[in-house]
């Protein structure tokens, strides 16, 4: 393992379906940063993150998580990684607490530590009153919060989130954003895709813009503005300009 490694290093990452979804992508995310991956629909964001999480096998390239080769030692990589998809997949017949107990069991977390952490997480996400209710009657937002609590209960060092704020009300979204910020402040790395550009603008340390499976631009908001040649432009304007330019070039 390298000393002080990056949280995530993708080199030449490639995935083809009927067309290239991710095209020899190189990406580095530093340890302890909040990284927002933006792109239009079908840009390859979700495919990229699913390969990082071990849900899809790349056709080519490498994935390194905290210095661990995730393709050769997926179990070790998964031990320190958490994945939250845009469509919360939880068990209808379990309560949030039972769900978190199951997740903690899968990650082999000490039960007493996991239980207090689970209760704390559910409370901080506003689910304290629902922690003994089966999830079958939960709204999408509540399910998303349970899934997020499941991702955090095993204290991952890298959190990968695909559109985590979809379906959340303003209060819940604030809860989630606060929780993610706290994790980043405590040294955790967060990679998130989002279509809500204000969230990326406000929360992300660095932003990557991807289109047709390739990285178009990357940097802090200030760096992106510099690259775009305008210091007063919004992220939304820059994003649209970048994507339009790429579409015109294609």
């Amino acid at each position: 393992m390298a000393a002080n490694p990056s949280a995530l290093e993708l080199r030449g990452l490639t995935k083809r379906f009927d067309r290239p979804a991710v095209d020899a992508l190189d990406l580095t995310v530093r340890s302890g940063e909040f990284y927002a991956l933006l792109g239009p629909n079908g840009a390859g964001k979700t495919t990229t993150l699913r390969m990082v999480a071990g849900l899809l096998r790349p056709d080519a390239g490498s994935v390194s998580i905290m210095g661990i080769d995730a393709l050769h030692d997926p179990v070790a990589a998964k031990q320190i990684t958490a994945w939250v998809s845009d469509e919360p997949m939880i068990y209808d017949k379990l309560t949030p607490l039972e769900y978190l107990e199951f997740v903690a069991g899968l990650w082999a977390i000490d039960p007493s530590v996991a239980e207090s952490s689970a209760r704390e997480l559910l409370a901080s996400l506003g689910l304290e009153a629902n922690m003994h209710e089966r999830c079958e009657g939960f709204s999408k937002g509540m399910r998303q919060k349970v899934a997020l609590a499941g991702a955090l209960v095993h204290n991952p060092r890298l959190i990968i989130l695909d559109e985590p704020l979809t379906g959340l009300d303003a209060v819940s979204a604030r809860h989630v954003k606060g929780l993610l910020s706290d994790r980043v402040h405590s040294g955790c790395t967060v990679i998130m895709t989002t279509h809500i550009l204000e969230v990326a603008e406000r929360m992300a340390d660095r932003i990557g813009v991807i289109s047709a499976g390739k990285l178009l631009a990357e940097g802090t908001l200030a760096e992106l503005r510099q690259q775009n040649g305008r210091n007063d432009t919004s992220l939304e304007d820059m994003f649209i300009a970048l994507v339009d330019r790429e579409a015109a070039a294609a």
Partner: protein
Amino acid sequence: MTATALNWFARHEIRLAWREWLAMMTGGRRGRRRAVIIGFLVFGALLHVPAYVVIGRYATLQAPLDRSALIVITATIFLGWALMLSQAIESVTRVFYARADLDLIMSSPVALTHVFSIRLVAIALSVIAMAMLLATPFVDVLMFGGGARWLAVYGVVIAIGLSAAAIAIAVTILLFRTIGPRRTRLVAQIVAAVIGAGFVIALQVAAILSYGTLSRFAILTSDAVAGFAPGPDSMLWWPARAALGDGEALLLLLAGGLLLLGVVMTSFSAGFAETAAHASTGTTSARRSSRTRPFRSGSRQRALRRKELMLLRRDPWLVSQSLMQLLYLVPPALLLWRSFSDSSVALVLITPVLVMAAGQLAGGLGWLTISGEDAPDLVTTAPLSPSRLIRAKIEAVLLVVGALFAPLLGALLFASPLQAAITALGVTVAAASATAIQLWFRVQARRSQFRRRQTSSRLATFAEAFSSIGWAATTALSLSIPVAALVTGLMTTAILAATWKFSPRRD
């Protein structure tokens, strides 16, 4: 709502029912339509063979019939009615819970009473259509041997279909009003499963208790039942007389069926909309866990097994589906109990029944645990190798099968230790084979899609059935003709090998 609009909605309903049925048959793959049609034609043609074997000799039956013949025909019609009732209850329940268009319909400017009436008539028609389709080979055989008068059987199917739909609607809506929408869904599913299998099993149980045999005809043709039967002019024999071509009985039956459906629709139509509204919102009421206990320790596989067992235990749909399979264990269990004292030869019959049931149960459970994973991303991103993950799921299936069959095998041990050992081996092999087939053909699906598991892969479905039948035959023959058991055992192994060869997951 105008007549044109009603007509349009009726066509919409028929189109939806047709597409749902087609999707179930094709597993949602458009390319399979032609294969399904050819398969149905071949199946229909082949069904004429067992139809001829079962009822070919009755084609020349003429009225008046003796009491035993009336009882057997009436019981057979009642069995058909029970199966139609079971299907209708399930369909009515589905209308209230599973259709995604309730919000659209209820927010549209139409009279809900009319809309739901059409929907319920569509259910009655689909139940009748399916029954007529299944009855066709039998009617063909009867007409071939006894003439066109047997066309009256279709009339009987229509009449009993109407009454089955009427009773299904009444039962479901009364359940709604008495026990609430959430419990209705579970209870209706269980009632449908129990009614579907209950009549045959009840006859078998009665036959075992009275005559020590699994044959239902033993009890139906007995003097005891004939003694209880009413006289030849009783209404009870109308369906049998109608099936034999008695026009008056047929007209009365059809009028009775229509009247019953009409009365039920009129009595309950005002509450349809209210019921549907309750069903669409009532299912989301919270169910709280009654106890709080600390998080449990254990390995990752143990956590998985615990989760699988908890989900199986809490799945009402699975309960009703499994109940059907377990109900079939009641007659052999009774046979076993009766055979204790006299160590009858009939005891051997229990072995194939148990082995077959174990295979079928393991297949269903295997699909639920292996394919029916509601949080696939979570378990795939967990720090656990795929082989350990699958092993834990298989262990959960085998644990449940073991727990259910151990008491029966334990009882068998006292009656015949050798038979118990061979049966235990058969149960294990059949369960392992069915689970392996589910593993080779695993697909990612939600547990709620359990109904469609048999249409997602025809090969897997047939392989699972043939494997269970093969191992059941092998274990039964091991006890009587061991050399023949070797042949069936090899044949079943060959079926499994061929299934593996054609499976998408053999790599």
